[in-house]
């Protein structure tokens, strides 16, 4: 883990290291926690490095690289601190690398089961600067500390420097310019220092690298963006919002290359309406947003549905709610919202990919569903999936087929009816500009030609036509795209079944791999299609389980509610997590063990354990004593201590 203040470049350092590891054959999972802030607030980046595929982060930290005091002791200068640093997360035998300038703070650390390693960053930086003809300027180049910290981390772990040097150069656009050279040198001095002094001591050495193979290091927003390109999306609309914006920014970078229009709108109302009308206009369209933006979209979703627009595909990146909530933190709180947003009964498809790979394939499929069933498709992702990096084999595209659905043949005249009643409810659609295809479309209830009517018989038929398309999707979309079951085949009983959805899949999968690979105690069901819901399969699997625990990244157990609504089954245990952080591998096990032991119906999971939410400050009690003991240094709401890196 590398921790520091936002704007200090710690994510760049972590990603450079991850890239070097990826190229060397390691499997990497990167997870970042950050504040809704540009500069100054605390951020921490975890890299999990393995010789086997990994899809989640773990709680224990084996090497903590601290860029500032806050990483060590938290933000105790606040009356209500937000965190207590990361020292308590370091595993016994682990180590902390910190700048010698943090010495005084590091002395407060009472743990004797970990290594505390001091790095003379300023001195090492000065050496690199002197070599570059800039002696004595270490203070002015202090911003480079993140690069030195990168070098120190790599050195302490005993990893090779060469791939890191290459990745540093790549981060400067691949150019071997003076700046890149200075950064490489600075990193190298720190690398050599740490390697020489510390690498032999650390108990958690890197495993030997697996054989090199082609792999990408990709995050969720990039996977979704690539899927949209692959699917032929022509118009992406968006209004900036965390954590969805990265995807639109990614696509903006490819407008020329792929003939893709990215439209930044004045608000999310406009974003959804433009996406609906673009779909009517003959283009595959999409929009990406988060909860607060989606809250402005139900109107447009209803409009798309009643006018049977072939789309759009809406990417909903969930974050902590309600309202502005936790803008940069994890939550799976919009499941029921996505299913129900809008007035009246709205036919829609709601998908929830479980990992970055599924983000790619599900987003691709979403465009086919939108075209085939002529309805809005919502793809639920979340902050965790959006910002995590994972090493994966490059996405395979040769088998992907684009299905644009029923299109009215060109240049046929006659009495064309855009909303003609057909056997399966699908009416061939024409595209504005097409001769003989003129149609009318309205947000009012309408007749087959698209004109307003309030007639009773027509109303019944049109509702059946529109809503029936969801049933059709239920029949046509294969089970393999709706859920995945990790456990014994029927009719074998399942002692404890964990059910989860969305990005919890990664932690669930890794937890089972690590603790119960043969499913002797635990099985898991990951649900990926929320509407149409795989009712029969879920009933069958839940029916075989002696105990079911539903893992939900929200307060109210929304998946459990959905399961009950769709199947009538009431799960025995709900493990909910709404602390703004994703489930870790350990937390899955904690929840399953608690359920197995017959714990309460509702378990609140946080910081690696089952907790009883209290007054919000208890985790700081111990630290507050520290604050009292060092009032000058850690007094609340006073000017920051000298040398405090802000």
């Amino acid at each position, binding site marked *: 883990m590398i921790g520091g203040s936002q704007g200090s470049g710690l994510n760049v350092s972590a990603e450079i290291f991850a890239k070097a590891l990826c*190229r060397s054959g390691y499997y990497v999972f990167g997870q970042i926690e950050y504040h809704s802030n540009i500069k100054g607030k605390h951020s921490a980046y975890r890299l999990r490095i393995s010789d086997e595929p990994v899809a989640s982060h773990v709680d224990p930290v084996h090497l903590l690289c601290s860029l500032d005091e806050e990483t060590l002791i938290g933000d105790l200068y606040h009356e209500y601190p937000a965190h207590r640093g990361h020292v308590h997360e370091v595993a016994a035998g682990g180590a902390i690398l910190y700048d010698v300038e943090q010495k005084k703070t590091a002395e407060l650390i009472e743990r004797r089961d970990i290594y505390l390693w001091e790095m003379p960053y300023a001195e090492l930086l000065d050496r690199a600067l002197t070599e570059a003809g800039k002696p004595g300027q270490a203070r002015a180049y202090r911003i480079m500390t993140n690069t030195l910290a990168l070098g120190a981390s790599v050195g302490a772990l005993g990893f090779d420097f060469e791939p890191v040097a290459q990745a540093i150069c790549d981060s400067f656009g691949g150019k071997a310019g003076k700046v890149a050279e200075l950064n490489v040198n600075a990193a190298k001095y720190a690398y050599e220092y740490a390697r020489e002094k510390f690498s032999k001591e650390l108990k958690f050495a890197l495993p030997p690298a697996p054989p090199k193979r082609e792999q990408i290091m990709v995050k969720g927003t990039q996977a979704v963006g690539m899927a949209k390109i692959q699917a032929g999306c022509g118009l992406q609309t968006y209004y900036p919002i965390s954590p969805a914006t990265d995807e639109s920014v990614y696509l903006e970078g490819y407008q020329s290359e792929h003939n893709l*229009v990215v439209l930044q709108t004045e608000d999310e109302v406009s974003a959804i309406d433009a996406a609906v009308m673009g779909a*009517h206009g003959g*283009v595959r369209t999409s929009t990406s947003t988060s909860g607060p933006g989606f809250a402005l979209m139900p109107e447009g979703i209803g409009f798309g549905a009643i006018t049977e627009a072939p789309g759009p595909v809406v990417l909903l990146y969930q974050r902590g709610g309600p309202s502005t909530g936790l803008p940069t933190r994890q939550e799976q709180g919009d499941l029921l919202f996505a299913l129900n947003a809008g007035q009246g009964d709205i036919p829609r498809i709601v998908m929830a990919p479980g990992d970055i790979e599924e983000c790619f394939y599900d987003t691709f499929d979403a465009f086919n569903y939108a075209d085939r069933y002529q309805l809005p498709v919502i793809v639920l992702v979340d902050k965790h999936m959006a910002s995590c990096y994972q090493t994966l084999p490059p996405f395979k595209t040769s088998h992907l087929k684009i299905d644009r659905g029923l299109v009215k043949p060109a240049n046929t005249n006659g009495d064309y009816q855009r909303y003609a009643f057909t056997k399966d409810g699908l009416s061939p659609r024409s595209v504005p500009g097409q001769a003989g295809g003129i149609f009318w479309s309205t947000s009012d209830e309408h007749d087959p030609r698209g004109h307003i009517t309030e007639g009773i018989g027509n109303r019944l038929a049109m509702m059946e036509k529109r809503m029936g398309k969801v049933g059709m999707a239920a029949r046509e979309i294969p089970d393999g795209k709706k859920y995945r079951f990790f456990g014994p085949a029927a009719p074998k009983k399942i002692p404890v079944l964990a059910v989860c959805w969305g990005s919890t899949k990664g932690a669930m999968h890794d937890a089972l791999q690590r603790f119960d690979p043969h499913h002797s105690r635990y099985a898991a069901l990951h649900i990926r299609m929320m509407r149409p819901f795989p009712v029969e399969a879920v009933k069958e699997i839940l029916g075989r389980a002696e105990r079911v625990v539903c893992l939900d990244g929200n307060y109210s157990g929304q998946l459990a509610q959905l399961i009950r609504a769709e199947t009538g089954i009431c799960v025995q245990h709900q493990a909910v997590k709404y602390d703004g952080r994703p489930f870790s591998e350990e937390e899955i096990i904690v929840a399953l063990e608690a359920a197995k032991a017959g714990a309460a119906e509702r378990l609140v999971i946080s910081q690696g354990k089952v907790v009883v939410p209290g007054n919000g400050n208890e985790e700081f009690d111990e630290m507050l004593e520290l604050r009292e003991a060092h009032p000058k240094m850690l007094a609340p709401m006073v000017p920051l201590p000298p040398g405090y890196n802000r």
Partner: protein
Amino acid sequence: MSTTTTDLKTLQAQDFKSDVHNDWCPGCGDFGVVAAVQMALAKLQVPPHRAAIISGIGCAGKTAHYMQAYSFHTLHGRVMPSVTAMKLANHDLTVIGVGGDGDAYGIGAGHFVAGGRRNLNITYVVMNNDVYALTKGQASPTIAKGQKTKSMSEPSIMDAINPVLLALACGYTFVARGYALDTKYLSEIIAQAIQHRGSALVDVLQTCPTYNDLHTKGFYAGQVEGQPRLYRLDQTGYDPIVHNADDPLEIAQKKAQALLKTQEPGGRIPLGVYYKLDTATYEDHLKAKIPGLQEKPLAELDLYHRDITPNLKELM
């Protein structure tokens, strides 16, 4: 202007009329507006299938159903986002937005602003009768402070919006005003708006015989200080055109001149083009960065055989 004339037949206004029964109140000003749009399209010989009519909600919203063209009756206030996307999907279509004053300047005001900033090559016709008629005559954003129609329970205590000034502030490059009951001249203004390369606003003064007893046919036909209340700008030597688009001073002067024309002493109301600036459109900027659009509209490009190999390589 981007139309393709494939039909040898000379198009008449009648060819843009759908066979749907019109349920506007007898004497409604909306009839004049829809007729003027049909006449303008006929004048420009735009084939009906090459035109997209996008309307909002309310009485004005029903316009879409009365047009023979690709017609979308969308949501209250959302004309501009829909117009924008239709034009982006196919820049060869003639795209016309139609909405009421509440639609454009009230609930859709944010979109109205953005529409001006973008300067897409579209036309927005706003039927301005000072009331929300379909909900039985509440005050709209264009009713002035102190005014009370017979449908209102008390006089307005809010100021009215000035649509011309708002459009100028937002960046519409063609700003005009017409009168619904002078259908012929209105159709000429709308035709000029369609021909204009850029975002064009035509604010149409209009009567609501059912709810607005202030701004009636008689009011508009009346006199102010011995002169007709309504008169044509083009008959006064007024020059709305910015001749040097690179001269910010001229742009400011022409905008100031247009603003003054909305505040005639005595309350005379000029009709016609208030302001016109020819400058790069949103489509021009898009074409400069997206090569495919120079060849074909977005909806006609083959976007379905893309290769993401370079995207994947970047992540290795």
